[in-house]
């Protein structure tokens, strides 16, 4: 068991390394020479050829590519993701400063997701092939397909302009302010379909087991059968799709934070795109990939406890 966990933990190193290679390559392709940019920002200094060369040597930019990569990887392991070009501040600091806002919103969305997705999945499975089932599955697929930047403005037009029942909840005023309701509901739209689908399939598969028949035969009510016997085993597929859910939340946060003016991780990324701030862009991408890897790792760690039949 411990051996498995350690192996899994070690397995993330090559993964991270390849991600680093990919991002480093893209960063290398990206336009703009960091040295020239540095001297451009210092308006009083006129850079001579010699000064540029010396700065290049100091930053190791004259070395072969693989040495540059090793330097880059080593810096990242030390927590140095480079400096933002536009704001000349450390990228990691910038990300960590705004990330708590996104994390709060993401966690809230996750709780709402579990509280709505799992019951809806159970409902759809227990009413399989009825109108209720079609409505839940079809509806969640509809909400998953239509991008949030299509849905949000249309909702604004209906709710704010036509019906005049609310105002646009713009900005961030803390997690307890009612402004978070709309962004949270929009944020769960994409992962909701994943949760409902996995829960529904899980329950339908478990339903065929003998022990479910036994539970029914001994006279348990259908409600008890599902809640005490089926649920426990059917929830595993939902847990394994945590990585997908986190991906959905990260992707969603990019659009939602921009639409609702929330100064979080997603908004930072959009700003970096608009300003073509490559180090910040690379840092954000790496951070997102790291989050997804971690959630996959959590799944791997939790999985054996949920389903003891899994042999390691």
């Amino acid at each position, binding site marked *: 068991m411990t051996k498995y966990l350690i192996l899994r933990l070690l397995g993330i190193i*090559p*993964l991270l390394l*390849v*991600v680093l290679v*990919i*991002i480093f390559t*893209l*960063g290398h*392709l*990206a*336009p703009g020479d960091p040295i020239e940019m540095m001297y451009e920002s210092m308006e009083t200094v006129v850079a001579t050829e010699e000064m540029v060369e010396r700065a290049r040597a100091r930053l190791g930019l004259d070395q072969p590519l693989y040495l540059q990569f090793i330097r880059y990887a080593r810096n990242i392991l030390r927590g140095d993701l480079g400096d933002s070009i536009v704001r000349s501040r450390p990228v990691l600091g910038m990300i960590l400063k705004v990330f708590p806002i996104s994390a709060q919103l993401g966690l809230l969305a996750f709780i709402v997701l579990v509280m709505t997705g799992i019951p809806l999945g159970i409902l759809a499975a227990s009413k399989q092939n009825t109108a209720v089932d079609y409505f839940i599955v079809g509806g969640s*697929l*509809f909400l998953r*397909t*239509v*991008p949030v*930047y*299509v*849905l949000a*403005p*249309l909702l*604004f*037009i209906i709710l*704010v*302009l036509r019906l005049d029942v609310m105002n646009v909840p713009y900005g961030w005023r803390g997690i307890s302010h009612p402004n978070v309701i709309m962004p949270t509901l929009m944020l769960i739209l994409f992962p909701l379909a994943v949760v409902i689908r996995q829960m529904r*399939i899980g329950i*339908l598969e478990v339903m065929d087991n003998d022990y479910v028949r036994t539970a029914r035969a001994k006279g348990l009510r259908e409600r008890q059968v599902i809640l005490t016997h089926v649920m426990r085993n059917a929830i595993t597929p939902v847990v394994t799709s945590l*990585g997908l859910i986190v*991906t959905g939340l*990260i*992707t969603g946060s*990019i*659009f939602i934070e921009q*639409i609702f003016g929330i100064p979080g991780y997603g908004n930072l*990324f*959009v700003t970096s*795109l*608009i300003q*073509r701030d*490559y180090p910040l*862009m*690379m840092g*954000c*991408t790496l951070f*997102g*990939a790291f989050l*997804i*890897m971690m959630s*996959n790792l959590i799944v791997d760690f939790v999985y054996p406890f949920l389903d003891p039949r899994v042999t390691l």
Partner: protein
Amino acid sequence: MTNTTSNQESEQSSSETIQESLLGQLESQEFGLRGLWSDAFRRLLRNRLSLIGLIIVLCTYATAIVGPFLAPYDYLDQNLEQIALPPNTDHWLGTDDVGRDYFSRLLHAMRTAVLISILVPLLTLIIGVTLGSVSAYSGRTVDNTIMRLADIVMTIPTILFAALINASIAEPLEIVMGNLHEQTGWSFLTNTVYLDYLIVFSSLALISWPGEARLIRGQILSLREQEYVLAARAVGATTGQIMLKHLAPNALGPVIVSFTFSMSSAMILEASLSYLGIGIQPPGASLGSMINRSMSTWRTWPHLIAIPAIVLGIVTLAINFLGDGLNDALNPRQSGK
């Protein structure tokens, strides 16, 4: 007693069904139809949602092909005296914030969306088929490497990755194209609109191949173990014949379905990139950039944002309905649940 009679009955009925199916096959041969495909087509048409999807998709593609030729105005013509007009008889969908005819722009944006929704899945398919079959047919090391790489690409969040690729390869590609232009003298190579398309195509294909490669690899691995492949090999069929006659037709169903779904996801990804301001750049028209551009003015001119949003929503939904229907029609055994 009852058992034997029911057995006889079922035998009788099964022989009847066999007869029927044989007759059906004969009939379809007479009319020159291929049984599998015509069956699938009939199943597809019976599904009402996917029929609606098919009709909408066909209409969209027809509009995208002929639309720009029929457009009442040039989609780039600005008229600063007629800014953000509501829909009227001169301008069917009104005009945008710099006085361009919105209907003409919409037609061009639909052409962009449709072009992306065909070319990106095609490119993805080519990469996927190549890597997937190499993975399935080569040894463990190569297989492992390709599949690990697929896993890794999948862990990087799609939009972030696509945006990063898009932003990084733009300038190098421009330089490459510029050099090509100097050597060949073809002027279209430096056309920024083509360049934008090329960048979006390549970045989207680069992030979406893993799913396709996995699918192809899985199909090959499972199909080549089938008895009919063994039988074909036993009677002396060559590998090429087996691939063309047995593997390809059987793998085609799932591939068509995944192609359809990647059509809608490519469309959405392009719109998302353009919405974030890094896809198709301003003179070119894209549904995503139309939505982005009118996002700040939705209060004053709601029609400017509603029109592209509704079009994008309907088209992607239609493609997904079609994909669901195709899935049921082409893989009837898998679509139980």
